């Protein structure tokens, strides 16, 4: 997840600016140090011949103003490319929660499709991400795609991302948001257009009302359904679990998603991600936990 290996329009522009500024900063630091060392370590004991007014005007006024001017000339157009100006190809709503991300794609009819901690984007298209928060201030950031923007309760901020490479990337909350700020990651899947449509259709088709056995469904209804839904059409208190088995990570980037880790997560999530908002499962029997795991793994 490096800003220096960009996979998006804005991140690519910024990466160029970054390299230029890093080289410039290094150069000026060494130059100033050399000027200082020369003053102190020069051979001759005589005062040096160089107009002091020239140094003050040249170094103190002209130099910083010129450098700032150049930076703004390159920086401002780049900044504009990150703003939501003009029509976007796709709109996605993202809501920060302590400590996970709700992602709201839209289906072909424009109806909301809820999922959590995974964002899907079509390559090459301009996506406007509308960011807000359900509780405290978070910040939405996908380093390889572009800058970050805060998720502020009560207002919506919009950032424009335009991925240039297909792949799976990592995003992360960047504004300190409490106990588990460190474990508030998410994944961004950048697809070819047709794969993106396929994903959207698959998500829209998710219907787990008949997944698993009745006993497994019962366990989920009894222990999980108050806060979690497995239907992408439903917005509940906790992360939506539609298509959970397809996701790369569990617990907002805490744990790789596989059969063993799913069971570890269900049994010991308060140890893996202490103080997360899900009640401890210590009171649940092993067979109930196994039933929940199987229900979540079962084909829709």
């Amino acid at each position, binding site marked *: *997840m490096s800003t*220096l290996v960009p996979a998006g329009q804005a991140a690519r522009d*910024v990466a160029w600016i*970054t390299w230029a*500024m890093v080289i*410039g*900063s290094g150069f*000026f*630091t060494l130059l*100033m*140090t050399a000027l*200082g*060392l020369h*003053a*102190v*370590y020069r051979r001759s004991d005589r*005062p*040096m011949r*160089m107009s*002091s007014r020239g140094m*003050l005007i*040249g*170094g*103190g006024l002209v*130099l*910083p*103003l010129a*450098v700032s001017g150049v*930076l*703004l000339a390159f*920086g*401002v157009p780049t900044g504009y490319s*990150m703003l939501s100006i003009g029509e976007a190809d796709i709109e996605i709503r993202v809501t920060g929660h*302590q400590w996970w991300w709700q992602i709201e794609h839209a289906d072909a009819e424009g109806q909301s499709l809820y999922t959590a901690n995974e964002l899907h984007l079509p390559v090459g298209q301009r996506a406007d991400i509308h960011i807000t928060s359900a*509780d*405290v*201030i978070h*910040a939405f950031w996908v*380093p390889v795609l572009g*800058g*970050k923007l805060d998720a*502020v*309760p*009560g*207002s919506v*901020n919009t950032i424009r991302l335009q991925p240039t490479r297909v792949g799976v990337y*990592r995003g*992360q909350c*960047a*504004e*300190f*948001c*409490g*106990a*588990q*700020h*460190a474990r508030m*990651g998410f994944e961004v899947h950048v697809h070819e257009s047709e794969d993106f449509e396929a994903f959207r259709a698959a998500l829209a088709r998710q219907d787990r009302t008949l997944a698993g056995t009745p006993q497994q469904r019962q366990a989920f209804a009894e222990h999980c359904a108050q806060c979690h839904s497995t239907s992408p059409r439903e917005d509940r208190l906790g992360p939506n679990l539609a298509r959970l088995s397809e996701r790369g990570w569990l617990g907002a*980037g805490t744990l790789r998603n596989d059969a063993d880790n799913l069971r570890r997560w269900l049994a010991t999530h308060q140890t893996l991600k202490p*103080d997360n908002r899900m009640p401890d499962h210590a009171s649940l029997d092993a067979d109930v936990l196994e039933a929940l795991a199987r229900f979540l793994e079962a084909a829709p």
Partner: protein
Amino acid sequence: MSAPFDPHTAAQTPDQAVLTRLFSTPPGWGRLSAVNHSVIGIRFIVASLVFFVIGGLLAMLLRAQLAMPGNPFLDHEAYNQIFTMHGTVMMFLFAIPLIEGLALYFIPKFLGARDLAFPRLSAFGFWCYVFGGAILLASLFLGVAPNAGWFMYTPLSSGEYTPGINSDIWLLGVTFVEVSAIAFGIELVVTVLKVRAAGMSLSRMPLFGWYILVTAAMMVVGFPPLILGSVLLEMERAFGWPFFEVARGGDPLLWAHLFWLFGHPEVYIIFLPAAGAVSMMIPTFARRPIIGYTWLVAAVIATGVLSFGLWVHHMFTVGIPHLALLLFSAASMLVAVPTAIQFFAWLATLWHGRPVRRLPMLYLFGVLFVFVLGGLTGVMLALVPFNWQAHDTHFVVAHLHYVLIGGFVFPLLAAAHYWLPLISGRAPSERVGQWAFWLIFVGFNVTFLNMHLTGLVGMPRRVYTYTAGLGWEWLNLVSTIGSFVLTIGFALFFLDLLMQVYAGRRTAHNPWQAGTLEWSLTHPPANYNFAALVPVASREPLWDQPGLVEDIHHGRGYLARTRNDWQETLGVDAISGKPDQIILLPGPSYLPFITAALLGVFFVGFLFGQYLLALFGAGAALLAALRWAWHNGLPQDHPDQDAGSGLSLPLHSQVHDAPGWWGMVIGLLVNGTFYISLLFGYLYLWAVAPGWPPAGYIDINLFWPLVTALFAVLGAWTCRWAVARGVDGKSPALALAAALLLGLLGTAGFAGQALIGLPHPTTHAYAAVTTFLLGYCGLHTLLTGVFAGYVLLRWRAGYVSARRSLELRVITLWALYSAGVTLISLGLIHGLPTLLGMAT
């Protein structure tokens, strides 16, 4: 050429023995009554260094935790408390108090005075700092330290998401410490303007004086927004007044604005005094006066002004209008100009001088490399698109440490070596210090240089753990190793200083052959600093005025003779430095300690929800402060006094612009900034917060606000009337009694409007902020009455006369201010709904 005069071998005059007695601090418990600026200054410095060690150890814990991914060393709660406290301790309990200590100790010595304008005020500030610091420190050991970050963003820090006592400790503890910053700001502005050597015009003042004047002024206007924010947030937490809660009409970003309105100037408040120290040292080692004195003064003032226009660059990612982004981005780059001017002035001075390579110069080389790099990454961060990538990553952590260690710690390490001989009387020693420098320099860069990259490859700040495989492992490990080297370097540095202080040889007089006044003193200086206050005719008097040191120590100058057991120093015209009064300084007093302790009762009472106890503490602290003020002034008129050298001057309580008058003016500037921040908050919520308009606006017959305003205006007028009668030698009693009565009536008027006209403040941010505004005005009106009553008592006791009208004039300033805020507030409160009502 004869040997230079050495004051250490000169015999003491009888007057010097008296001065020593007058300026001394009592032993034993009497130390609690110390007010001497040297004693208080050293206490500030030592306490701040203790906090530096604590903050450093906290940083070591953080680095140990991040050494490898998934480290089980610290859990999230411990880590979050520790990183919050690392920032809080380093900013509020180390950096600012260290600056305060240095300025309190050195400013009178640089400016050729015997003490500060208000010695008891800085003693009071010291106790506030120590008590507030103790609250914060205790919370760390009890495991309930603040854990919402040193920037305390709401709603994370609010009651809903941090229900424990943690945030209250931050808000109350830091506010208590800030009282000392405000005290310092008032103290130093007035001291630099009024308490200098004769002939030291502003243009001859040592540059450190300019830096401190600007810094103190920045503290005067920089701290009130944060204090206001803290008060509002604490009221939200304690009483449920929803200033920042979206659901009830508040806005969390109001906190962010108030915090960074303070927080950005804070960076320059820390940097400028350290740069001032550099500007004092460079000429000494370059063996020539500084080049570009006027440029530097202009640069310092420009930095101070610009720093208040940059706060939004800490908030580029919160969702700011695009044009504002551009403006604040450009302004943030602009501040590079005054900084570059300072560096090029220093370089030019070295180029044109004959630099000597002594140990402090090595540390100044550290300043050059580290701060320049930190400044340049600052320019990078000012560019919005880059900021959006780098903000809240380890890149910013690296940047801010380059700025603060390069711009504050390295200069002060140089300063420690430079001025220690003066403070301790021990000769400089340079060998161990070189080792310490290289350990610190290498350790620092190994810790933080690669941390820029850690941020650019995606590691956010303030994470207690991270997953393996993201490419962050070796970067973090290297930083941790570097931080241990850095710590060893600091330990060696302090060890070296202790060795010098306790085992060093006696130093020769003025070992660096510097040109400024402090080096004319004995090493260590006498508790009264100068035996005689000599006229100054140059920026480097020790270079340009031969015989000056002898004159001082032989008592040839002003105020060399003692009388009436008075502790005297000169007051001068602020611009020209022409002497215009004799300032009588107070002796040791327990009242600063007692007042601070009672204020502590208020803070601790509030912390534990004991609001009656808190109220008692506040009231008792006010009484103690009035008791303290009772010691001021003289019970009878005095003729002008002989100041020596044929000069005759009035005593300060009998002149128009006495330090006390200036103190009230600067105090009202503090207060006014607080009020303007409050108006900003009022209008900000009104314009920006979601969840408006409220269910209803203030609903009361306009008769009541009009009558209240009338009381306030009449209160101010009666105070002016009292002044007019006082300076005519007539009795001001009736006028003062009227002002007292009007104050009480006005207070009732405000209380009535808040209680009758408004919904309960917990219902909506509108009601909360309006009630707060009315409360602010009510409190001021009440205090006008209290002060009028107090001066009435003073008049009866004989402290007020036609010549001694200072107290009348001082309370009149307060009354005018009160009336002003009353009119503005009532106009806003009652006018705005009407105006908007007409518009809709």
